[in-house]
């Protein structure tokens, strides 16, 4: 019963609205990811949960208790700051021991706990060092150790991977997930990076300009994005979006834009939109290149550019002058201008309203 609930929280800074009517339950033991662009209100939401900010409207519940006005000292939360916020004048040991010092434990008990957490995070060799003399990755582990040693109800992470270099970041994702699973610790994790959400989160809350766009199981949100914003944001590379008209021809419905024409007769929910402009979404990773067997739609495309990213490739294509990106999970180098067949299936298509941006599939039900 240690679920945390955010209810209808609104926060303004002067005239700027940072959060607008945000509600969310955070189940115990979950890895809860707040995803959004810089300035979307992620940090503000975390700070409100921690008690570092007080919302203008709405409440925060820890279990049955309304903690909206309870100061951070009495919330039993831990916060890993973006800059880690280690105490530079204290040793790593003292940094980690800091939350324990107020609990009236014996020196021996404190040492035991600190060493336990430190060895769990493999930083037990650093305990005598000062934070300014260890690496960024190590500093982060110290910050995490300081959070975990408290055994908090809720562990809040504010973009902890942003300050790390690429290699460590990759490594940390897996470690985060394993750690969370092993400890059963409830984690709320704010990040601007969709890969963080997809690789670690159980539940994702997508924020945009202070409003909740969608809150769902992360794969549910990936498969059934609530709107264009979630569709584009939750995924890498970004979803291809095309604008086109729904029109009837003979017995079937077609979605048409310049260059593309798709038979969408099997999508019953699109019937009411006949004659309307509708946005079509197509994830780069759903486009098959070359081998189009099993595809429901096939086109001939021109390769504009093969952009190799690590061991993957983002292929920039052009179909009758319409630009789109495809994602190939291997190195795929082709000369520009080469023609290649591409294909995708019915279930790979997403349709959004051109006015509200809402997902038309979800709109119906």
């Amino acid at each position: 019963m240690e679920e945390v609930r955010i209810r209808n929280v609104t926060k303004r800074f002067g005239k700027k609205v940072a959060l607008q009517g945000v509600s969310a339950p955070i189940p115990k033991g979950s890895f809860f990811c707040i995803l959004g662009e810089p300035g979307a209100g992620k940090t503000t939401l975390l700070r409100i949960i921690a008690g570092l900010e007080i919302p203008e409207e709405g409440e925060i519940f820890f279990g049955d208790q309304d903690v909206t006005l309870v100061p951070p000292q009495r919330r039993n939360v831990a916060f890993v700051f973006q800059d880690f916020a280690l105490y530079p004048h204290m040793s790593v040991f003292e940094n980690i021991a800091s939350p324990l010092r107020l609990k009236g434990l014996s020196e021996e008990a404190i040492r035991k706990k600190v060493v336990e957490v430190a060895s769990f995070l493999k930083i037990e060799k650093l305990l005598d060092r000062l934070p300014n003399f260890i690496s960024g990755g190590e500093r982060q582990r110290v910050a995490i150790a300081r959070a975990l040693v408290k055994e908090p109800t809720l562990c809040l992470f504010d973009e902890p991977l942003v300050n790390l270099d690429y290699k460590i970041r990759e490594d940390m994702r897996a470690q985060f997930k394993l750690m969370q699973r092993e400890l059963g610790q409830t984690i709320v994790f704010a990040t601007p990076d969709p890969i963080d959400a997809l690789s670690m989160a159980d539940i994702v809350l997508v924020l945009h300009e202070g409003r909740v766009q969608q809150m769902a199981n992360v794969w549910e949100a990936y498969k059934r994005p609530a709107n264009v914003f979630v569709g584009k944001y939750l995924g890498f590379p970004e979803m291809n979006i095309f604008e086109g008209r729904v029109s009837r021809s003979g017995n079937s419905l077609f979605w048409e834009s310049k260059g593309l024409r798709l038979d969408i007769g099997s999508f019953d929910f699109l019937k009411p939109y006949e004659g309307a402009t509708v946005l079509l979404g197509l994830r780069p990773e759903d486009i098959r290149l070359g081998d189009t067997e099993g595809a429901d739609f096939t086109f001939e495309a021109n390769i504009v550019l093969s952009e190799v990213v690590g061991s993957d490739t983002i292929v920039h294509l052009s179909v009758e002058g319409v630009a789109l990106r495809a994602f190939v999970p291997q190195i795929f180098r082709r000369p520009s201008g080469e023609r290649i067949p591409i294909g995708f299936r019915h279930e790979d298509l997403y349709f959004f309203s051109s006015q509200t941006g809402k997902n038309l599939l979800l709109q119906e039900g």
Partner: protein
Amino acid sequence: MRRKINWGKGVGIGGLILYGIFILFPIYWTFNTSFKEIGDVYKVPPSFVPTRFILDAYRFIFQGTGRIALLNSLVVAAISTAIAVVLGTMASYAYSRYPFTPLTNEGAQFNLLTVRMFPPIAFLLPIFWMWKRFGLLDTYFALIITYTAFNLPLAVWLLKGFMDALPRSIEEASYVDGYSFWQTIRRIVLPLIGSGLAATVALCWIFIWNEFIIAYLLGGRNVILYTAYLPSLRRGMRIMWNQIAALSVLAIIPSIIILVLFRKYLVKIYLRS
């Protein structure tokens, strides 16, 4: 094989030696003079090395008003510095963390700084009349408050730089760890601005210790500071150089102690600004 001579280094060291002599010689000469009898002071040629250590001048300073003047200076400088640093710490914290209230916004901060932009003498006449009207002229209170008024902007301005450099998240981490505001100030903020505090103490102290006009105008009879006492060391038309030198040697001591203790912090603060 010819030894290579590094001319640049040689000139540099030579220059430093000359500069050292230029700076240290007056101090040495004061020291030398303080051990002379007044008759020997005017002797031509002067003796460059003290032949006998005559302590008459020191005796005079210690037995007379000189001792009281030095003690007064110590008391006034210590109390005023303490007040300026304590208030300065609190004000600079507020200026750094809450710069949006009417008392701490940019305008208010600038107002405080302007006190320091004019030479003290520009304000001294009104300050003199104010204390006279209050009947507080020539009291510890008037001197301490006046010095504090001049030192506070300096303290705030120096300490605010250190406060600004202190990330807020460190304080917030301490709150999340469970520490109260005052515990956080004591555990986190004060230790981390320690070098700033040391440098501020030193600069406030030095300002008071070297100050003459305020000491002369606002004190002088009941509460006489050593800088105001110094010019009175005359016998008729004769200036008692040996006594002046003895008082000066004694007066240098506290400043030297502070400079030696806080040297590295002072360098830091000069490099910063």
